[in-house]
């Protein structure tokens, strides 16, 4: 049984299995990586690196996209 970790995603605490990559995390959240930009602890993680970046306990993750604006 993998240990679980707690991360902050868009301001909310969420629990995931340990050893999860950012790509896995997006998949769990049913998000298409092509439509989202990921910021991990205030650093942008570029799309090609999402699969190799592992999420750790206490990480702060921001998932953003374009919305209507002026």
């Amino acid at each position, binding site marked *: 049984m993998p240990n679980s970790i707690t991360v902050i995603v868009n301001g909310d605490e969420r629990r995931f299995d340990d050893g999860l990559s950012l790509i896995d995390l997006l998949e769990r959240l049913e998000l298409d990586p092509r439509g989202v930009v990921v910021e991990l602890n205030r650093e*942008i993680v570029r799309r090609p690196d999402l699969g190799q970046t592992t999420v750790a306990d206490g990480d702060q993750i921001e998932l953003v996209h*374009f919305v209507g604006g002026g």
Partner: protein
Amino acid sequence: MSTAVKAATDRPLVIGGREFGSRLMVGTGKYADNETMVHAIEASGAEVITVAVRRVDLDRTKEEGILFHLDPKKHFLLANTAGCYSAEDAIRYARLAREAGFNEFIKLEVIGDQETLLPDVEGLLEATRTLVQEGFKVMAYTNEDLITALKLEDAGCEAVMPLASPIGSGLGLINPYTVRTIKRRLTKPVIVDAGVGTASDACITMEQGVDGILMNTAIAAATDPVAMGGAMRHAVEAGRLAYLAGRMPKREIAVPSSPTAGMLD
């Protein structure tokens, strides 16, 4: 349509080395629904479309992002840093936008006051310098102050965007003199951003000789946004043509249009 005249006498709008097909730029906020937005943008003829960067709503993941409705091949998506109250935040949003987007342009906003949404010019200059260094093509939303506009140009902005009046106010062009002065003194394009309320505002703004207008609420909050999109398209073209045509001087006495000679005894 007067398009032939326009093409013969006007130069295309070029910002940061890229040529744009329309002098009208429009925002995508505040529309009742995406279908109305798409039709209003279509009617406006705008090529540059602004978008904002926000958190994905994780509880409504089935909802499509705005890109689902806008064809990036047809429109030039210009991300903004709306809602940022410091240079640091604006820089952060600009970097996220570049990662999400399709180009290195950013409509830079650093807001200084919640009630008026007027720009914090100190933060704006600071953010501009950093972003220009990082290779961004900065289009800076600013007030109608000439000195700030000159400093922004000096800092490397590709376009300076003075307001007509506060964002979302619809008060129209409050100070034509300062906007005209900024246009006269700057080398980079001047795009008036914010405050236009209806077609006559857009027309009067373009008559000052500025290079273009960016608007959102005037179209989105109209009773019929699609019709207003069309009205704005004509107003921007009419104002531009009138500027190029050169208006007659204003006089405070009447001058007859018909000959005074040849009248009957």
